[in-house]
Every structure is written in structure tokens, then in C-alpha cells.
């Protein structure tokens, strides 16, 4: 029996970011789900129970910070990493106070994403 794949949920309104992250994560042997706004991501989170969420901030309908709060309200242990072009101090602090595990400013590097996946897999073993 093969190992369980790491389940990742990407939430970004940009099809470019979703495609490039998806391609990268599939190469890392992850199982990837996608959402395009802050409402959809909460529903998909509940259905999929991902190991980690990569969440944009500026999105239509509900933004990433609101979605983060809703996900944490549903599951306090949820691992959410903000992935945004707006890496200001105010946004960083707001995200961390709302329970984000980390904050990566766009444009991200493949190494940054790879490190997140490695850390998640390590933490799953302990």
C-alpha cells in the first residue's frame, strides 16, 4: 500500500498562481484542491480536510483574512499559510494574530513552497 499523499488546498483568484502552484505541488507528490475565493475555500476545506492551505489575501467575495478566521473557527488546528503580494507589517501581524502558520510574499520561490511541504511531512511523522 502506497503512502498517503500530502493534501494541499490552494486558494487564489489568479488562474496563473493556481496553475503554477498546482504544477509544482503535483511534482512534489501532493494531492491538490483549488478554490477561487474566500467563501469557496471554507467549503472545500470542510470537504477535503487538507494538510495545509495556501491562501491569497486580496480576493473577490471574501478575502483571505476572513477565510482564515472562518477556517480556524471550524478547525483550530488548521494549517494556513498566507501567500500574498501585500506583505506589509500590518497584514503580516493581522494574519499571524488570526492564526496563520506562516506568511510568504509573492512572488514566491519554489524553494519556499518545497520547504513548507517538507516541514508538513516531517511534522506528520512526529
Amino acid at each position, binding site marked *: 500500500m502506497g503512502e498517503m499523499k500530502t493534501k494541499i488546498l490552494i486558494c487564489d483568484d489568479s488562474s*496563473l498562481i493556481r496553475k503554477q502552484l498546482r504544477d509544482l505541488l503535483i511534482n512534489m507528490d501532493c494531492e491538490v484542491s483549488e478554490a477561487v475565493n474566500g467563501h469557496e475555500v471554507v467549503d472545500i476545506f470542510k470537504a477535503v480536510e487538507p494538510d495545509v492551505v495556501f491562501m491569497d489575501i*486580496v480576493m473577490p467575495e471574501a478575502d483571505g483574512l476572513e477565510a482564515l478566521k472562518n477556517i480556524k473557527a471550524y478547525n483550530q488546528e488548521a494549517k494556513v499559510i498566507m501567500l500574498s*503580494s*501585500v506583505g506589509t*507589517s*500590518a497584514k503580516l501581524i493581522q494574519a499571524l494574530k488570526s492564526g496563520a502558520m506562516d506568511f510568504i510574499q*509573492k*512572488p514566491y520561490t519554489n524553494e519556499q513552497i518545497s*520547504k513548507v511541504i517538507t516541514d508538513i511531512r516531517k511534522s506528520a511523522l512526529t
Partner: protein
Amino acid sequence: MFNQHFGQYLLNHKKITAAQLIEVMDYERSVRVKLGVLAINAGLMTGAQVETVHHLQRIKDKRFGELAVEQGYLTYAQLEDLLQNQHSRHLGLSQVIIDKKYLTLEQLEAVLISYKEESELSAGQLRTEDIVNLDQAGATLLDFSAAGSQQKVYHDYIGLLQRNIVRFLDADPVISKSEPIGHTVSKWLVHQTITGEINLFTGLAMDEDTLLEIARHYSGEVLTEIDELAKDSAAEFLNMVNGIFCVNASNQGVELDLQLQKIVQNQMPVFKQGYRIPIDLIFGKIDVILSVD
């Protein structure tokens, strides 16, 4: 920007916790960076040497700089340079981390070295420190004096955009003279508004072929038509530039936010004031549309 990236780096590498990062970022604006941290960051002294000088300070009535020179760790010229940088907020985060004892001096030295090494490796990631100022040649063509107190906003924005065009789209863009916004007609307009203490409309107007080339160059994807991926790729370029603009402003104490980026066809908003800055790229021409409200 250094503090922002370095803070995220410390968190990524589990050197400090999220709670500790929140605490140090709350404090870092008011902290005065001490010479020891500055010297470690500059690579002039090791953590152990700074500890030695701290120990000597406890037994001798002398200042840090004097003792560091006496011990042969610093020259007077190096000390002078460090003193001139002491009022910079650049390293406030490191100083608070030391003051709070979240890291020792030796641990800070090690983490700064690895941070700088990894930053070099990821040169594709933007560094704001080197993209704030517009090239001299470009600056002389741009007359934003009619914008009065807002002219710096226009200059800063064009400087940032120019550097990112060089980095992602075309190594040799040619900026032409800025014009009052007037009536601009273009097939495509990618736009996004920055809001907060200033409200800045930013737009890139262009024809179809240029839009496709910008999308291709920025995304690295194979794109043959203006589909959703192509439009999102061009919009993401503008979003990335604007995100850095907000971070720069935040580092100067001005909090800004981004609205959703949009792309429209055969539509141009009407502005009371603002500028159109033509930029010729190797594959086409864009008009940069800027309007501070």
C-alpha cells in the same frame, strides 16, 4: 523591507515563534539599534567578539566603539560608518530579538549569514531596497510637478515599475516623456487601485499582442491567445509591482492596501488628473496610467 523579509525568514526557519514575531514587530519601530548588532550584520564582528566587548564594558568605563577599536575588531573608519547607520530602522528587528533574548548574539550572527546566503540564492525574489529609485535618465523625462505634494508618489511608482519591467519583461525599456492623462484609447487595460493614506489608480494600457507578450514573459507559460490564463498573468504582474509598492510605503510608515486587479477591453476610466507615461518594450508599447486621487 529587510525587517519584513528577515522576520518571515526567522518564522519560516522556526528560529522564533509567531507570537514572538508579533511582539518584536510591535516593538521594532521604536528601538535604537546598538553597535554590536550593526557590526554583526555588516560582517565586521562575530557574535563572540561582541560578547567580549560587552564583558569588557562591564569592567571598564568605556563605550562599545572605543573598546571594539582597542581590541582590533573595528577600525575607526568602520566605527564611523556604523555610527552613521545607527539611526536607521533597518535592523530594528534584530535588536529587539537580542533585547528580548529570543536569540543570542552568536545565534543571530549565524542566522543572518544563512539568511543572506539564501537570499542570494533566491535572486528571483524581489528585493525592494534596490528598486526604489528611478534611473537618472528616466527621471529627467518625467515631469510630475503639476501633482504638487504627490509628485514623489508618481516618481516612486515609475521607478519601481521600471525596475520590475527590467527584471521580468524587457532588459532595456525606453521611457518617454510623461503627459497629462488626457484621453487614452487602448484595446486592453490592466488596472488596480491602491487605497489608504493615498489613493492611486495604476493601469497598463496596450494592444492585444503586447498583452500576450507581457503575459508570456511574466508567467513563462506557453500562451497563444488572450484566454483567462493570459489575462491573469498580465494582471498578476501589475499586482506584484503594486504589492511591493505597498510594502515600501509600509516601511515608511504609510499603510496602504490593494483592491482587486482587473482587466478590461475597450474601456478607459475618466480621470480629473493624472499622467500617461509611454514605455516602449522590445515587443510592443505600453501606456502607464497613474492617477492620485
